[in-house]
């Protein structure tokens, strides 16, 4: 979240006080492996997530909820926890692997929930409404859920894996005009941007076409991958299909922040590829033209290592 989804993090941090939260980052978290690690090998992929869960359980001070903002992280953490509960052999193997790093995790110890779920169901729409000082009146919002948050959703937290409405309701609570977006849970292209870009472009185009058909001003997402694909690849998709969509894509937390009266820059607005200014002008918000300058890093305090060389097959 600190990187490509920085605006997501910024906006979340900005609104956390409004909704009475104090968030703690899992110390030294590692990547969940997305859909890639498990494609290569199975057990290590579960161990990877097991480590995050174990770290979270260690760090939990009476708190037992891990909030995931990204749909892949959410899915992978929840799935690891669930499969470990259900499959005794997997549980034993993951824990044996974790033991090599001095860790242990009892499945079920932490609850893995997505940000949107907790905001709507724990904080509540009424509490959100009370915080609204700048209603998003007149802004036509296309709520976009994507795949992995609402599916498979074994605990039915989002109401429907096919046609959920909780993001719709949240946006209505903020005063926005919500489009009944028929492709709200379709795929953003996922990793196909890397594997076969034309396939991804087509998936992106379908979403943009529908949003355009429904005359949405802006699309809201709840996953960094979706945001990245729709925003950063929108231009490529346009080139590929000779279209000229300019559909701004923002995180739902950013719109919450705006409705709560925060400064656009504080919410990371202006870092998008597709200009959000025309859309947000409808609610009287001015988006900073230039992104806030990133602090330049010197090599010295950089903890990074040089890039590994690719493994060449054959």
């Amino acid at each position, binding site marked *: 979240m600190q990187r490509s989804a920085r605006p997501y993090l910024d906006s979340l941090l900005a609104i956390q006080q409004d909704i009475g939260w104090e968030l703690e980052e899992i110390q030294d978290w590692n990547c969940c492996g997305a859909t890639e690690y498990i494609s290569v090998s199975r057990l290590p992929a579960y161990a990877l997530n097991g480590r995050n869960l174990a770290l979270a359980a260690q760090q939990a001070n009476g708190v037992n909820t891990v909030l995931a903002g990204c749909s892949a992280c959410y899915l992978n953490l929840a799935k690891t926890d669930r499969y470990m509960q259900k499959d005794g052999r997997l549980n034993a193997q993951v824990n044996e692997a974790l033991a090599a790093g001095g860790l242990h995790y009892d499945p079920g110890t932490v609850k893995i929930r997505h940000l949107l779920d907790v905001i709507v169901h724990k904080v509540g729409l009424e509490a959100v409404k009370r915080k609204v000082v700048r209603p998003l009146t007149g802004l036509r919002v296309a709520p976009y859920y994507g795949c992995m948050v609402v599916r498979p959703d074994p605990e039915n937290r989002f109401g429907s894996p096919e046609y959920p409405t909780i993001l719709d309701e949240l946006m209505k609570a903020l005063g926005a005009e919500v489009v009944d977006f*028929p492709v709200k849970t379709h795929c953003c292209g996922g990793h196909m941007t890397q594997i076969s870009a034309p396939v991804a472009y087509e998936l992106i185009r*379908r979403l943009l076409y529908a949003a355009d058909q429904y005359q949405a001003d802006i699309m809201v997402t709840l996953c960094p991958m979706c945001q990245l694909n729709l925003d950063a690849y929108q231009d490529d998709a346009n080139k590929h299909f000779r279209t000229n969509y300019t559909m701004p894509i923002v995180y739902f937390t950013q719109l919450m922040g705006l409705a709560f009266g925060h400064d656009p820059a504080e919410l990371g607005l202006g870092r998008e590829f597709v200009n959000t200014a025309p859309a947000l002008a409808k609610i009287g918000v001015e988006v900073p033209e230039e992104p806030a300058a990133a602090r330049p890093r010197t090599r010295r305090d950089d903890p990074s290592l040089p890039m590994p060389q690719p493994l060449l097959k054959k």
Partner: protein
Amino acid sequence: MNDQAEPKERIGVYVCHCGSNIAATVDVADVAVWAKERLGDEGVVITHDYKFMCSSLGQELIERDIKEEGLTRVVVAACSPHLHEKTFRTACARAGLNPYLCELVSIREQVSWVHSDRQAATEKAKAVVAGGVERVIHNEPLEPLHIPIHPATLVVGGGIAGIQAALELADSGHQVYLVEREPSIGGHMAQFDKTFPTMDCAACILTPKMVDAGGHPHIDLFTWSEVVRVDGFVGNFTVTIRQKPRYIDTDLCTGCGICWEKCPKRVIDDVYEAGLGYRKAVYTPFAQAVPKYPVIDPENCTYFINGKCRACEKFCPTDAIKFDQEEEFITVQVGNIILATGFDLFDARRVPQYGYGRLANVFTSLEFERLCNAAGPTNGQIVMRDGVTKPELVAVIHCVGSRDRNYNNYCSVICCMSSLKFAHLVKERTGARVYNFYIDMRTAFKDYDEFYQRVLEEGTIFVRGRVAEVTDAARLPSEDGKLIVQVEDTLAGRQRRIPVDMVILSAGLEPRHDAKAVAHQFGISCSANGWFIERHPKLDPVATMTEGIFIAGTVQGPKDIPASVSQGAAAAARVLGRINKGEIELEPVRATIDARHCSGCRICNGLCPFNAIIFHEDAMVSEINHALCQGCGTCVAACPAGAISGSSFSNEQIMSQIEGLLLFDRPVRSRHFSAV
């Protein structure tokens, strides 16, 4: 334990070869010899092994021994009791021995057919025989139960199955009480336009039957009514029926229809018109309703809501409107009950990807039936939700909510045929291009596949694939404004997107929403899905495990009209047989409470699923009604005072059988006990 002095009984043991079925694996002669030698102390006086015990010669052998040797107990070691128990019991009865003193133990299904080691099988057969011998000592002479049958019958549910059953019984001169929840009988069939595969008009074939039932001298019709209480047992049930107030005096009403003409309140009719049409607050569901009297629906009637209006009352020429009418409870006595309560249609909203309830031009099968029906809201015009436009492209989706573990994992049986019917009707009336999307085409039964051929001929396009989604989200301008059916054409191996104007969802059949409560009320069992369970799926499909309760039609599982009618008639035939005989004979497998030992703790009262145990407050003891008791034995096992005994399966019989099975050394066991 086996050291008693003088055996009380004289027992004969007969070991059957069953040709080579048993003899090939079990040394039958050895078993017979062994039984005579080793079970002599238990009272075995004679043993035989014989080629076929069930043959007339075999049976005569038993009869002769009973007479000549004075046998008081008989054990036959042969096949399963489910096959020949009756045969050997009858043989004993012929020889003057109470049939329940004969025990058949299985050494074929449970020994020779399932084991291959001859020695081990022979030893096990000996143990099984010993179990039977120990058990039979404690068998008691019993008489079958005889229960008189009241000649009247209750039929619950006035759909086609219930109507058929009621007519069969009434036509043979017996009283029938037909109870229907809605204001008219007719059921789902009354909503249909045409019936497959012959395309008869549903009303044309159903209405005469409804009229017959309505006017039959032997049928008392209770519409707008429900059964609220069932007491008693086979032969003599006492049933309480609640008749909801119609607010119409049916003695005065002529069914002229002025009331519903004058009623100012229009209500969406979501029962009969499946939500597509309107009715008034005072209404009959449809023109041919039986009985012809309307009902006032107090939830929508202006007078009931705010005390004003009474238009119907003003205009009624016979003063039949009675706003002060109250519900009535009627009690009837019947000997048998036929349940024909039918099905509910699967709610297609539960499959969100098909968009029903969200996308205007997605229709359910029942809605489509109403669209086609000449008496329906569009006078039989097949039009889109705007009420005007004829569709040019129509999709029919099979298996909606059926064959799907997310909803119902069974096949709803009728949907393939009704989907074909829809395709045919659309073609015939609009000339539209029709696509049918199916997983497997199931057109079993007479003339059904011929109908499929006909629909193929007519040019309907069949796509083998379960539809993934129906959406209005166009991807290309050519799809704009259409509903797009997205599917894998599994035979072509490609994903297809087919734009259409109208989608018809062939929703499956589900048990009534209150099926479990109804099953409980009548003391019968239903499957996990909620379909009522028949006594035997093949050989006794309309009886239930509860004596005197029969089932007919879709209440037992999805089925089409011919099958429902057959079941209605079959259930009536079963009931008629009993009425004609005047009584039924029941197996004497029953529990009895010895009042002397009953402590009145009432533990057994709540355990009985058939409410057969009554508690006498005065004497503080419980008693079991033998006509209600089905002999499961749960109370026997639970009684802390040991006051309940179960005939045919008494504690003594089972305990002794255990001892018998484990009586002698364990020959199959090579390592023997050593004292700890």
